[in-house]
């Protein structure tokens, strides 16, 4: 059912955890629907790039793999907030060599959680920008 890439991210997820004094926290999904993803980020306040990112996920193989992949696409790349906002469900799914059609909604949530974390950071800062 799943590609090798998905199974790799599922079996060896990258960046699992929760940043304690996170600059931004984003949650997507809910337990009733069966997928919850929580992404925490640390932002370099000068350059406004993402310094660190971690995820926690309650969900299926695709949910875990897409959360892991989205953090891998961000971590260590010194992405600006704008660049990170450009990561979409499509790019996450492509990076994983595709997902079964029925699982595409899981990849939506990974990108959503990341965007929510960035928006949370901006809101805490009192920044009125929207980066969509």
């Amino acid at each position, binding site marked *: 059912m799943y590609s090798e890439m998905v*199974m790799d991210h*599922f*079996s060896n*997820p990258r960046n*699992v955890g*929760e940043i304690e004094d996170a600059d931004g926290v984003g*949650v997507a999904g*809910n*337990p*009733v*629907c*069966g*997928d*919850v*993803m*929580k992404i925490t980020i640390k932002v370099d306040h000068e350059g406004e790039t993402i310094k660190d990112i971690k995820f*926690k*996920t*309650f*969900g*299926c*193989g*695709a*949910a*875990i793999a897409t959360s892991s992949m989205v953090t891998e696409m961000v971590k260590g790349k010194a992405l600006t907030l704008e660049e990170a906002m450009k990561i979409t469900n499509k790019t996450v799914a492509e990076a994983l060599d595709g997902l079964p059609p*029925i699982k595409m*909604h899981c990849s939506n949530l990974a990108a959503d959680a990341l965007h929510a974390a960035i928006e949370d950071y901006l809101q805490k800062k009192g920044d009125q920008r929207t980066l969509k």
Partner: protein
Amino acid sequence: MKRIYLDHAATTPMRSEVVEAMWPYFREKFGNASTLYFDGQEAKGAIDTGREKVASVINATPSEIVFTSGGTESDNFAISGVAWANQKRGNHIITTSIEHHAVLNICKFLEKRGFEVTYLPVDGQGFVDPADVRNAIRKNTILISIMHANNEVGTIEPIEEIGTIAKEKGVYFHTDGVQTFGHLPIDITRLHVDLLSASAHKLYGPKGVGALYIRNGVKIVPFLYGGDQENKRRASTENVAGIVGFGKAAELALNEMEEEIKRLILLRDKLIKEILEKIKYTRLNGHPTKRLPGNVNISVEFVEGESMLLQLDMKGICASSGSACTSSILEPSHVLTAMGIPAEVAHGSLRLTLGRDNTTEDINYFLEVLPVIVERLRAMSPLSLKKRLP
């Protein structure tokens, strides 16, 4: 890696005696049972023998057994066959909210064709209340269809009580016996059942063959039209090899039933007890003892079912779940939902169904593997006791 199969409710491997019994009917004894020459009559004889064996399992007479392509066809045949045949008498059918989709979906179809269907609720352990059945019966009720035992949580329904009510009220009573035929003692006279569905591949027989028991005198129209096979009740050239295999599987199951029930119950109860002890925040779904001898259904909080199944698969273990992620319609199990189990608990459910080939070693291996998997997934999960919402 040795594969450990814990999904016997889904299907079972054929026993070697069954394969051996079937083998000649693929090539040497390939005749069409409706032909008059020796090879055809030989096939007919094999079908008759298979029919006797299947009938014995439920104490029916052989002429009351019709062979079908499986449990789904038997359910569809029973319900639509009785519905169309008795339409002038009435158009109301009573069933439950936890039936298999082979019953639910034919009922939904009939609702669009002028029939009314009452879907009875179940309690928190999956039991139907016979009083609810009695209260639901109206003057225009022509059929009650209630499964003997539920395939997901194993709950064994009070069929004898319900059958007695149905008989008293003069309403036909069908039970989907797909999970119980050959697994639990069934006497259709004692249970007051008019129709019963069975499927060969649930009891170490081949896929593609099943049976419908139809009590003599029940008014029913065929589901398949064509030739005169099965006493004009079910057209189609018979699946002789399949029927022979079904008969053999039924015979073996009947002979070994008592011992097998005892053996499975010990393994099942050990599995339930130790999962609940070894892993915190787990709960049993269904009744502790009024459940199928091999059925275990447990919800594990804070983790999701499909991710558990994938991890178990990597350790060589086959199981199933009531999680939305494992369903093609992305909704949690309708059975768990009908039992009032919240979605987030249903998503974390694991169904393990034991069979002939499972041993204590299998159970012990599973009990070593599951806690590690749960711990790993819980460490990854944003949900916990303090944070039921993240």
